[in-house]
């Protein structure tokens, strides 16, 4: 128990690191030089807002008692009645709420008003994430996805990744495309940041998946034995799924586009980790490799869908988190073994179609709940303060318009007026790639 507690302290700090700075770096590198600061700020400010809201009502909505969609928000308001010795479990769950909201920001690069984001974040956390976390993680009898449907989700395939992915899709459809997309080329501005971010996300993911072990009140040695065997399984599965997904993504790239890319490797890491998140406790190493490889390969294909279907999911939140989350959650129905944490056999282990059905239903509930409520929230913001940045500000760069800053001073010789260098850098690079451009070919 002492070891478990010490481990949770570390795991919680690791998961917070996944948002600040890992996700901010991962997304920041993929965005353009005129919007990188806004992209990173969306993660940082989401952490601050969701973190405080979580202490106020988030923990209570998740863990204060039974309920189909959520528990009473006021029972444990501001952690009233929660012992300080239990704060670490609150903080651990808080970091999950933070990263789920922050994940959405990748879809709206350079065009969502910062004020709209600051309003969207707490409302979405309150109405969408806190309830879904209750439905999945609290696992009380009445809770919809875990208790009633009985779908397995070890660390958040439904509550975190599918939830953020479908919300990103809905938000993008209501927000619209970036000016010039897809005709104008919008390359990632700094892939070294993205490689660094992906690596840090991976490191933090050990806190995310391995830390998701649930202490069920066993005494002494019984818990120690389960703790050791279960964390071994989740650590091993998390690692191998990431390896397999790198290979899956690069294999598709090499076959279809002739080159294995660094962005492909970074994306494969994230896709594999997303897919193994729900399955980390349920499957064997073979299952983890299969899920990782499938996620890497399918996501590498899925990120091209936005060009065919015409929605500007700028940094592929849908293609990686929604698709990867669905793959991992559904494939539990195939690869789950009764030796795992859920104690359920999937299709390949003689368990029949029962688990596959439960998992699929869990996915559909998460998609429907998050999709509908995100649409309501986004529409409410759209018709009050508005979602969309002014077009001129968007073209000049949201960093300058929203924050009054430029990320880089690469043209200091010409920057007598300080802030103008960002515009110069941005307009130079965009003309550099458009003169012979016939648009992006998916």
């Amino acid at each position, binding site marked *: 128990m002492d070891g478990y507690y010490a481990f949770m302290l570390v795991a919680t700090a690791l998961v917070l690191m996944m948002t600040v700075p890992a996700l901010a770096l991962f997304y920041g590198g993929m965005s353009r030089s005129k919007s990188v600061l806004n992209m990173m700020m969306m993660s940082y400010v989401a952490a601050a807002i969701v973190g405080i809201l979580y202490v106020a009502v988030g923990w209570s909505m998740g863990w204060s008692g039974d309920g189909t969609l959520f528990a009473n928000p006021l029972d444990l308001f501001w952690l009233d009645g929660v012992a300080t010795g239990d704060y670490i479990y609150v903080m651990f769950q808080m970091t999950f709420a933070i990263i789920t909201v922050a994940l959405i920001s990748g879809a709206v690069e350079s065009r969502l008003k910062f004020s709209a984001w600051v309003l969207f974040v707490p409302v979405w956390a309150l109405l969408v994430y806190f309830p879904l976390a209750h439905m999945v993680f609290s696992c009380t009898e009445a809770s919809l996805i875990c208790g009633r449907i009985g779908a397995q989700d070890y660390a958040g395939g439904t509550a975190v990744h599918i939830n953020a992915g479908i919300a990103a899709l809905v938000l993008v459809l209501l927000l619209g495309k970036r000016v010039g997309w897809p005709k104008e*080329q919008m*390359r*990632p501005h700094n892939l070294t940041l993205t490689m660094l971010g992906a690596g840090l996300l991976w490191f933090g993911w050990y806190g995310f998946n391995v830390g998701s072990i649930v202490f069920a009140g066993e005494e002494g040695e019984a818990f120690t034995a389960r703790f050791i065997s279960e964390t071994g399984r989740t650590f091993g599965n998390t690692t191998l799924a990431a390896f397999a997904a790198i290979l899956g993504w690069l294999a598709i*790239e090499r076959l*279809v*586009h*002739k*080159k294995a*890319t660094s*962005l*492909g490797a970074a*994306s494969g890491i994230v896709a594999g980790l997303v897919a193994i998140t729900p399955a980390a406790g349920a499957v064997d190493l073979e299952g983890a490799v299969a899920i990782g490889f499938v996620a890497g390969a399918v996501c*590498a*294909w899925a*990120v*091209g869908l936005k*060009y065919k279907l015409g929605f500007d999911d700028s940094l*592929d939140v849908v*293609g990686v988190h929604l698709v990867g989350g669905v793959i991992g959650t559904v494939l539990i129905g195939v690869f789950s073994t009764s030796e795992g944490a859920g104690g359920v056999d999937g299709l390949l282990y003689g368990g029949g179609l029962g688990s596959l059905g439960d998992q699929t239903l869990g996915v559909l509930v998460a998609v429907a709940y998050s999709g509908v409520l995100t649409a309501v929230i986004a529409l409410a913001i759209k018709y009050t303060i508005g979602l969309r940045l002014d077009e001129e500000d968007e073209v000049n760069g949201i960093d300058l318009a929203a924050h009054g800053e430029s990320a880089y001073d690469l043209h200091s010789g010409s920057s007598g007026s300080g802030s103008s260098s960002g515009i110069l850098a941005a307009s130079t690079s965009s003309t*550099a*790639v*458009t*003169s*012979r*451009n*016939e648009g*992006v*070919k*998916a």
Partner: protein
Amino acid sequence: MKLVTAVIKPHKWEDVREALETFGVTGMTVSEVSGYGRQKGHTEVYRGAEYDIALVPKIRLEIVIDDADAQDVVGIIVKTAQTGRIGDGKVWVTPVETVVRVRTGDTDEAAI
């Protein structure tokens, strides 16, 4: 006087500079530029989306020189910068009316 302008491949720049220095050229203006000719650009792929990058990085040299030396300088640049592959660049010569050395006010040949 003549202005010799050359656009060459970046990896040939050091060789060209040494050859010109050996010949006796004492100074030049060098800039990193981008453009395209028959070589065109290249393709980059990010998450499956192909981007046509039209512009290729080049080095541009500008040398002001006596009329008598102009053809030699052009010859040295062409000989040194040549790889025989597409994209080696161009050299052109334009007449120059006046040159002034800012420090001393010397003009024309004395200013080169």
